[in-house]
């Protein structure tokens, strides 16, 4: 079975509030000295792929669209024992809307050959959008299951536990499929073994350009954007926290309740 996991390199989102800065011109986050990481949710997707490989054999390929430096993200995935990695990097692909990204990723998946499953994290680690898997499914013409936590594959069909608003569903469909992966206690990403990290450092990772993939320019040019960023506002937050006093924790607890009542919050 051939599995492709789409991974994204992002600015580490787990930073204190003071370290978050916006560029006034682009209205995007300034990287500054902040570290770049593989989105945590994409790592859950890698873990699911690795578990499927352990159970049923096959290969796992990490696919990353990003700047040149995103090679580091591919190497991280290889260090998790993913079999192969591909970086798609091209100046014309730096500022592309989600629809264009889906087009590019779909082309890369098609170039990779016979793929049975494409996995993504259930949410983009920086934009917070949860749309890539459905868009990819539309580009590829495949079925789609979002918010999947557990996946079993047998005889060309997948059985997936999908988390929904009030519980979960067991969803079933024929491969190939696109799945977006949500974390739970069964897919916590494994620690990378030293031998895999060292092997990853030596592995060749091809870089594909838009031309290599036959990307349609009309799908990725600036005019293709269906939404335009007009403004980015930072909501004002009252940062003063009133700490409830008390000689003992139970006293603090009681005072907290009284305070909430006084504020008419309960």
């Amino acid at each position, binding site marked *: 079975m051939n599995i492709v996991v789409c991974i994204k390199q992002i600015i580490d989102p787990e930073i204190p509030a003071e370290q978050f800065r916006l560029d006034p011109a682009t209205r995007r986050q300034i990287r500054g000295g902040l570290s770049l990481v593989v989105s945590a949710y994409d790592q859950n997707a890698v873990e699911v792929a690795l578990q499927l490989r352990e159970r049923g054999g096959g290969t796992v390929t990490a696919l990353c669209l990003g700047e040149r430096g995103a090679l580091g993200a591919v190497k991280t995935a290889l260090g998790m024992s993913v079999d192969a990695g591909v970086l798609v990097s091209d100046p014309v692909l730096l500022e592309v809307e989600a629809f264009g990204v889906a087009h590019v990723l779909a082309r890369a998946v098609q170039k990779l050959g016979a793929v049975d499953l494409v996995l993504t994290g259930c949410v983009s680690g920086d934009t917070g959008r*949860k749309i890539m898997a459905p868009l990819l499914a539309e580009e590829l013409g495949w079925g789609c299951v979002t918010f999947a936590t557990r996946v079993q594959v047998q005889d060309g069909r997948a059985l997936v536990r999908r988390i929904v608003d009030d519980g979960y569903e067991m969803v079933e469909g024929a491969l190939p499929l696109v799945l977006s992966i949500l974390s739970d206690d069964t897919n916590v990403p494994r620690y990378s073994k030293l031998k895999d990290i060292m092997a990853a450092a030596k592995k060749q990772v091809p870089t594909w350009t838009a031309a290599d993939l036959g990307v349609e320019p009309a799908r990725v040019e600036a005019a293709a954007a*269906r939404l335009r960023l007009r403004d980015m506002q930072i909501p004002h937050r009252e940062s003063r926290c009133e700490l409830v006093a008390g000689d003992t924790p139970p006293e*603090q607890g009681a005072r907290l309740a009284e305070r909430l009542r006084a504020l008419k919050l309960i």
Partner: protein
Amino acid sequence: MTDVLIVNAGPGDPVSQHTRELLGAARRLADATRGRVHAAVLASGPDGGGDALIAHGADTLWRLNHPLLQQPQADCWVSGLCQAMPLIGPQVILLADDALGKEVGPRLAARLGAGILTEVIAVATEGEAVLLHRPMYGGRTVAILEATRFPVVATVKPRAIPPAAEQVGRTGEQRSVPLSLDPTLIRVSVRERVAEEVRGARLETARVVVSGGRGLKGAEPFQQLQELAQILKGAVGASRAATDAGWVPASWQVGQTGKTVSPELYIAIGISGATQHLAGMSGAKAIVAINTDPDAPIFKMAHLGVVGDFKAVLPAFIAKCRDLLQG
């Protein structure tokens, strides 16, 4: 002239709070631009009901009737809605930002060549421009985006937009959309649905949310949170650490990969305040934190806090709450 379509899951009667919010947004958009409000009802079965949607602001009710639309299945819903679009012709399409909307919205947009914005918290007009507001960077910012083309699809968060008021006796028209749907459309099928026990309020719409995190160190303390939630008539949530540990069901998660909640009161117990968690609860009006670590990021967001061990603080807090509210 901006015509707005809202998509309603279910037969249309009674009208849910979330649907009333969609209609509120649709009505304000249409009124500002002399457009019309359409409501699509996806259900199978005989026509009837739906007057409540009209009473809450829909000018035209469109019934998309087909047996394959009886269960919420994305392949069928996307196809059905696509078939209805040439008849309805809206500029803006609003869906609820729930499990189904999060999949149907993007796929519908892809097929229509429309823009898509999910987790929308406000919809506005500026002349003929349609502006959509959405939290970004884990809730640290609010992005305001303008549709460059129409139609545009948006999924709207619950409790973000003022709902439409009912106007008894309001009239509108009801129409049917003939649909051609085939079982071969269905790529994935639901074999089983398991509702996880939710006592009391639902997270997405609760006025009060009590959440537990890594600091609880296990599943058992969540029973105390359930007790507290019951007294406060609220819902219980959890951080990703707690759901990843398997202490509570995944559907209880509040955060970037879980639910976004905007209660009047959010009580975070044993939660450090990771960015991806704050993304899920930053919409809360009042935030209370109980944590042993005075440097936990949650205290930067909280309005009221107790630095202490929940094991020692909670029983007294719960007892006093019970006293004050039930005594």
